[in-house]
């Protein structure tokens, strides 16, 4: 276990080093959530007048979504880095080493966690500039925690795709599923304000429950269990399912 942790940290460190060395990869994934936060809060702030918003600031309402999107980008980037390593042969170096197989996946996930924490911090700072303060200790920790959980989930998805496709060409598939999962959830308005097929899809979309939990923490400044536990369950289920999706090909890669 100690070895798995050491190797995971080493590989996470390498991924974060690449983020620093290749800013062109990182900056868009930082700017996009900020852009979504600013553009959405600016363009749609009027809809906060709807009774479903119960008088909440639309900027505060959007902060969890921007943090979640940032986490999604971090996860996708982990998959893309791994796909690049597979294509370029660097992954063969990792595979031919005695490093624990689990660490080859945990490393990139660890890097995604750090990146999502960084993006969440920047989103909170942007919220602060827009006069939305931090939602208290537990509220803040919950938003961070759920964003990081989403980063781990999307990492597992993107890594699973990368290990199967073994090519960066699979990047659009990694991205489109993550974007769709967020945009067909309660990303822009509460569940009650959604109508038609989108309402039905969002009810079944587990990201809805993650966002609701994060949003509840952001807006109330504390942990409201009735809103939080469905989010934790959804995140847990996604982690287990997509974790298996990511790990399975790793142990069969040489077949």
């Amino acid at each position, binding site marked *: 276990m100690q070895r798995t942790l050491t190797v995971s940290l*080493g590989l996470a460190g390498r991924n974060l*080093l690449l983020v620093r*060395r290749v800013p062109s990869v990182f900056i868009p994934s930082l700017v996009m959530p900020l852009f979504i936060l600013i553009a959405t809060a600016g363009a749609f702030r009027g809809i906060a007048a709807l009774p479903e918003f119960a008088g909440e600031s639309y900027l505060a309402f959007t902060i969890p979504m921007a943090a979640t999107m940032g986490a999604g980008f971090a996860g996708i980037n982990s998959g893309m880095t791994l796909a690049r390593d597979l294509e370029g042969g660097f992954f063969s170096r990792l595979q*031919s*080493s005695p490093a624990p197989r689990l660490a080859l996946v945990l490393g990139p996930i660890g890097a995604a966690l750090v990146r999502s924490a960084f993006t969440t911090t920047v989103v909170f700072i942007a919220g602060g500039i827009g006069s939305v303060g931090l939602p208290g200790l537990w509220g803040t920790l919950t938003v961070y925690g759920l964003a990081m959980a989403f980063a781990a989930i999307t990492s597992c998805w993107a890594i699973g795709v990368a290990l199967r496709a073994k090519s960066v060409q699979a990047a659009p598939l990694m991205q489109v599923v993550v974007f769709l999962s967020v945009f067909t959830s309660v990303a822009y308005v509460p569940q009650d304000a959604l109508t038609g097929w989108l309402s039905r899809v969002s009810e079944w979309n587990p990201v809805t429950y993650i966002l609701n939990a994060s949003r509840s923490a952001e807006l109330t400044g504390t942990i409201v269990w009735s809103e939080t536990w469905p989010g934790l369950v959804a995140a847990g289920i996604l982690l287990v399912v997509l974790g298996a999706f990511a790990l399975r090909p790793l142990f069969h890669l*040489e077949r």
Partner: protein
Amino acid sequence: MVAIPSRVVTALAVETRDLVREYKGGVRAVNGVSLAVASGEVYGFLGPNGAGKSTTVRMLCTLLRPTAGWAKVAGHDVARDAAAVRRSIGVALQDAAIDPYMTGRELLRLQGVLHGLSRQGCRDRADVLLDRVGLVDAADRRVGTYSGGMRRRLDLALALVHEPVVLFLDEPTTGLDPLSRVTLWDEVRRLNTELGTTVFLTTQYLEEADQLVDRLGIIDDGRIVAEGTPRELKAQVGDPTLAVTPVRAEDRARAREVLSGFGPEVLGAHGCVAVRLAAGAEGLAAVVRAMDDAGVAVREIDLAEPSLDDVFLAATGRHLEGDEAPAPAGPAPAASR
């Protein structure tokens, strides 16, 4: 079972039996390879592109599962005990798969982490290896700025981080200039002689196979078609060729007459008379004496062994493709043999 040269000591470093790798669609990249490499040996796999060299190496490095047959590396089965194999081997695959955004030192330290070295151990080993492969000055530069030769040397250093028992080098000098190629050969030789590391390398360069390996397996179409030391293999093909160039053109007929007593005539370069020397290299002195006795003034005498390309030709019916190395073209001068 393959015969092992007597100079090599104990257990087998690499052993395979009827190794097969079949891909979807029934294509057999490796089709029943059996070989044995003794500890401390430098074993080479020579063959054209697509012969099955890299696929064999990938199976031996646990990157690919054999479809049939078995293979053991450092005494461990590659399919059943892959983790133990990975602990024993160093691998430098084709195309030096090195992250261009990292520095040489960072990569060596990361490789140390992968092999379970302590933090201090990683640092120390990186320093030692950077010095060993002559990359101290470039250690903190990104690998993307390295030349092909530097990348290969770094790749070799990475494979040595944990002092492996068996080192696999897949076409280690492909694409390198002659100087970088010779530098790498020297390093491989040093590893083998000083540390006793068993080296298993693949190549498509005749000269590399000739210069570097103790024993050679010639692979074509997924099968080993010939195996032995380069000298043995060449000896199997036939006698060396002796080419004599008289000073005076009118002496060619007399030279031909003298040489006819030493072996059958073969086609030689313009201006020379060439025979297959039946007595081998040992017959050279007698030829010189006979020329002298016949009063033929000789400008040049060349004695050439059969090349590994001749060996490949004899085994497969065609020349080795893709040999781009600057191998000696004509017969080697007798004195340098």
